[in-house]
């Protein structure tokens, strides 16, 4: 019974694919009758477009939304218990859990793919897979992790927690919110189907002309990426509207929790820059499917154009990933230091400064691309300038823990590790912003280690801080603290060992995205591989802890951390309407140590269990 909407979605998708594919075949036949069956790609592209529409209508868009366009009554049955997680539902808390669980699974799968990559790289020469499999596995690992990095915090935590933090009942557009989640399963299907269609050997960056001329697996990748972009654009729009319009009485801009500010900043980029990458990807699809020549140099196209468009999104995109990570880490640091967030307004200014600068640094990805020489110096300086607003995040983190009353439990340990890891990520970024050193380091494992330090060491550590911090609120149960600490120390040590070794291998001339390498690099690669396996095993502790605690952990109180912000002033988990009484915001969220100060009231007193 629970799966009926999903089955109906699949049936509608099949019908949509048949109609779209048939239409494409018909058009192709009419346009060039001589070459009937000229290629499968137009059929796949148009078929997929209608299949996507069919899937969305079938899974719930028709019942919960589109019926009213035709004057029909909506059908929205409230389903209890676990079944609601398989439904097109508009409750932001359900959607948040859908996102979190989906992207945790994607994270673990993509992690397994990296284990495969490290197995191949344990020794030079071809060992466990061929070069085409390697390229496809590497590209899949990349795009899946990029999706996790973009969607896990904004789709997961921001969905669950942001409306609570600002005292709202839901997001501004609850049905758009459901839509942005339910376009994600087709993305997964396309990516998993891609290896069956020859895979894609361009990595997640999909540079043409290679991405125009290679196997059909590339088309599936491009369609997946565009669809995921749609989800990201809609999500950005929704969170901007939510923060602007749905703040509770008294929740002024100056009292917004820092996590809300960070999501708001990231949402600006998500809404705007993503449209540019969609454009870039669509032009590649047009080159492939209908033979246009945006990137065919022989017919007046320009391969370099794509790189500018791609990075015009994909550099700001790293701030879609890391800004909410900053916000989350600072949120945890201040609550577990029991001190006000240091330099709150400066950090907000820093976030907005990062948003502004993030749009004008993209060409630092093109220092060795053959781009005109005179562009190097301005892009180098603009890139280095980003360390000024980013430095404010460090000032705030250090100022907050200084003289605090630190509670070193699992979420706090992950937040502190975030500061350490991102410090290494930030400092090594300087070597890549500097053109002379970048000429050598570009496309080596130094770059790989650097962005893993920012995104995995930074954002993923922040995600784990958030998972442990909000676990009681989301599930209504406590996790096992001892297992949490074991997970933290294991992951922290193995993570740093793996990626510090990777910097060294990169400096020694190991270039990225290769299945084979010169024999003298064997020792370093073997070391990185073994360390990475130890890192991978640390997640088993986490999985065990989550599954066991969610099923049988002790019931969580409304506010087990005695935190001031609004999500803790309601029961764990919160009721459908979020708060038992309409929340009222009275003072700043982080005024720890100020006698008698209360941030907000919402009807549940301190320590009041459900």
């Amino acid at each position, binding site marked *: 019974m629970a799966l009926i909407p999903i089955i109906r979605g699949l049936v509608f998708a099949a019908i949509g694919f048949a109609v779209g594919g048939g239409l494409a075949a018909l058009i192709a036949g009419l346009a060039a009758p001589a070459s009937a069956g000229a290629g499968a790609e137009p059929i796949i592209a148009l078929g997929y477009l209608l299949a996507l529409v069919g899937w969305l209508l079938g899974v719930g868009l028709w019942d919960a939304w589109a019926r009213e366009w035709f004057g029909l009554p909506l059908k929205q049955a409230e389903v209890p218990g676990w079944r609601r997680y398989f439904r097109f539902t508009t409750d932001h808390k359900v959607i948040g859990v859908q996102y979190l669980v989906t992207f945790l699974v994607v994270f673990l799968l993509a992690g397994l793919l990296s284990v495969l990559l490290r197995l191949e790289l344990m020794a030079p020469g071809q060992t466990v897979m061929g070069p085409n499999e390697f390229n496809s596995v590497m590209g899949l690992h990349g795009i899946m992790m990029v999706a996790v990095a973009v969607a896990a915090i904004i789709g997961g935590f921001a969905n669950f927690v942001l409306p609570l933090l600002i005292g709202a009942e839901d997001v501004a557009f609850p049905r758009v919110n459901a839509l942005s989640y339910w376009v994600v399963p087709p993305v997964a299907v396309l990516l998993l189907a891609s290896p069956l269609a020859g895979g894609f050997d361009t990595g997640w960056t999909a540079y043409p002309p290679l991405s125009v001329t290679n196997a059909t697996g590339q088309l599936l990748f491009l369609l997946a990426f565009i669809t995921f972009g749609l989800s990201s654009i809609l999500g950005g729009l929704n969170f901007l509207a939510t923060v602007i319009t749905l703040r509770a009485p008294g929740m002024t801009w100056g009292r917004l929790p820092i996590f809300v500010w960070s999501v708001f900043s990231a949402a600006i980029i998500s809404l705007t820059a993503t449209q540019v990458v969609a454009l870039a990807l669509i032009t590649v699809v047009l080159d492939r499917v209908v033979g246009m020549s945006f990137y065919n140099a022989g017919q007046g196209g320009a391969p370099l154009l794509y790189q500018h468009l791609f990075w015009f999104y994909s550099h700001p995109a790293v701030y879609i990933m890391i800004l909410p990570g900053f916000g989350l880490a600072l949120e945890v640091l201040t609550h577990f230091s029991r001190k006000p967030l240091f330099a709150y307004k400066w950090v907000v200014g820093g976030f907005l400064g990062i948003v502004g600068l993030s749009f004008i640094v993209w060409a630092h990805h093109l220092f060795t691309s053959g781009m005109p020489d005179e562009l190097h110096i301005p892009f180098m300086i603009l890139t280095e300038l980003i360390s000024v607003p980013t430095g*404010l995040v460090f000032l705030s983190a250090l100022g907050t823990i200084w003289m605090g009353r630190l509670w070193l439990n699992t979420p706090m340990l992950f937040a502190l590790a975030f500061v350490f890891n991102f410090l290494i990520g930030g400092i090594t970024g300087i*070597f890549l912003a500097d053109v002379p050193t970048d000429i050598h380091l570009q496309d080596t494992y130094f770059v790989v280690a650097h962005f893993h330090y920012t995104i995995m060491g930074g954002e993923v550590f922040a995600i784990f801080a958030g998972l442990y911090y909000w676990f009681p609120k989301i599930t209504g149960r406590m996790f096992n603290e001892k297992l949490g600490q074991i997970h933290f120390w294991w992951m922290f040590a193995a993570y740093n060992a793996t990626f510090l070794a990777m910097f060294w291998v990169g400096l020694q001339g190991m270039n990225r995205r290769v299945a084979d390498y010169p024999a003298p690099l064997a020792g370093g690669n073997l070391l990185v591989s073994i360390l990475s396996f130890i890192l991978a095993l640390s997640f088993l502790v986490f999985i065990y802890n989550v599954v066991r605690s969610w099923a049988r952990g002790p019931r969580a109180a409304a506010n087990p951390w005695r935190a001031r912000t609004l999500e803790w002033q309601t029961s764990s988990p919160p009721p459908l309407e979020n708060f038992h009484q309409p929340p009222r915001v009275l003072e700043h969220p982080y005024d720890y140590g100020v006698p008698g100060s209360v941030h907000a009231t919402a009807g549940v007193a301190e320590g009041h269990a459900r």
Partner: protein
Amino acid sequence: MNQRPNGVALVIAWAVLTAAGVALALSVGLFPSPASKEARIIDGAMTLLTVLAVPIFAMVVVLLLYSALRFRQRGEPAEDGPPIRGNLKLELTWVLVTLVLVLVLAWYGTAGLLEIRHHTAEAAEGQLVVQVHSSQWSWEYTYPAYGIRTKEELRLPVGRPVRFEITAADVIHSFWVPAFRTKIDAVPGMTTVVYATPDRVGSFQEDYHFRVQCAELCGLGHGVMVTPVVVVEPSQFEAWAAQQSGRTR
């Protein structure tokens, strides 16, 4: 927990960590042994950035570790910390210092780039032109002055500036010689140019950094799109060139 933080201990820890880090960075060769004039400029930049980065890294780590150890509570804190919301002097200083550091970095980066470029302009006389043509998945080297075309190896004389003119037949590749620290993409539809002046003899057999390696993912054979580089004395190069051009004709 009412004692004041120990500022002297912090400064000492920072100084010791900084000194140790700088000593380590200077004693361990961060990069493989350089083999061109350009490589020495780039390695100088690498050392400079490392020396600048170590004290910043050390400062944050010392503050982080000190706070985590010094201010931690046993279990759940019984009281709140002092309500310090900020410190205008510190905030302004922090922004100014980071801004100055960025300007220093920008200055050295610009100077390094101009040095490489200036060196390039000087190299215009007496230079050896090598046309590098890339395709899936091989490199082809043409020496127009000698009428040589080869896919076997990139052979160069020591001490003479080389102008590489790089083209691509099919997809984007990237011309990278780790020992020279030169890297530039080969892009269909355009010719990219990069210079290197080899300044010591060497070969792939002795040092694997003497290799042309494709550095832009170009499909199936990307990882093995490698040819050896050999740098020899000018007289040996001329002898090789005479022999090769005889064979080509």
